[in-house]
């Protein structure tokens, strides 16, 4: 599914890399704990999180995560947006809760990959 469809499904707002809306996402993970993203999410290209700090962008970079969605109405800071633009990472935000945002995307065909998912 392309990022632009994801944005529509979760009524998202785009904060960075608006020119990369055609990235195709097949699987995602939802976590507020970056330690877990580092340890359990090796194959996902999208992260949904309620955590807002620059280390979210760093973690995304290290894990080849190309899209980060901030849930529960949280917005990335200017510093985070600058870092994400530099790394080519798309940042979206949605007013939806983590559970609802993940549910909508899962139902629409985005899978979860990693320990315990297969």
């Amino acid at each position, binding site marked *: 599914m392309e990022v632009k469809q994801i944005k529509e499904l979760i009524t998202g707002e785009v904060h960075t890399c608006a020119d990369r809306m055609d990235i195709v996402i097949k699987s995602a993970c939802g976590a507020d704990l970056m*330690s877990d993203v580092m340890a359990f999410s090796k194959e996902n290209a999208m992260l949904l999180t309620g955590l807002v*700090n620059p280390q979210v962008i*760093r973690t995304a*970079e290290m894990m080849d995560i190309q899209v980060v969605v901030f849930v529960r109405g949280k917005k990335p800071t200017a510093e985070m947006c600058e870092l994400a633009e530099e790394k080519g990472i798309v940042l979206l935000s949605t007013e939806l809760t983590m559970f609802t945002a993940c549910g909508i995307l899962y139902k629409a065909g985005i899978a979860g990959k990693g320990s315990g998912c297969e």
Partner: protein
Amino acid sequence: MSSIIKKEYDIPANDFSLAGEASSNVRKLLTQLGVNPTVIKRTSIAMYEAELNVVIHGNGGKARVEIFEDKIEILVYDEGPGIEDIELAMKEGYSTAPDFIREMGFGAGMGLSNIKKNSDRFVLESEPNKGTRVYITIYLY
């Protein structure tokens, strides 16, 4: 065999906005060299976890990275308080990270075991009050 590229990075203490900068740099370098993406990811994860440990626990330190024809060798070290019980520190879920680190999304006690999982060779040397040295080797092929 001598290394093709040798780099040294400073890891500043308690500066979370910069934590990961060294790993990001190495990642860029490996990408430019056309290294296999799986190897790049394993190297990034291992080095970033080690770098974060130095920021969180080690009062800052350094990273030395050497890229050879067949492998990457990384040494991440600090002169911080050291680890009293290495076996316990290696246990998944065990962490001495303070609350503010947990609020930043880290300190779940997965770091050291995750470094080990992503390395082909992993050596941890530490003694109380004598700092910590993490040696990571990852083969390119």
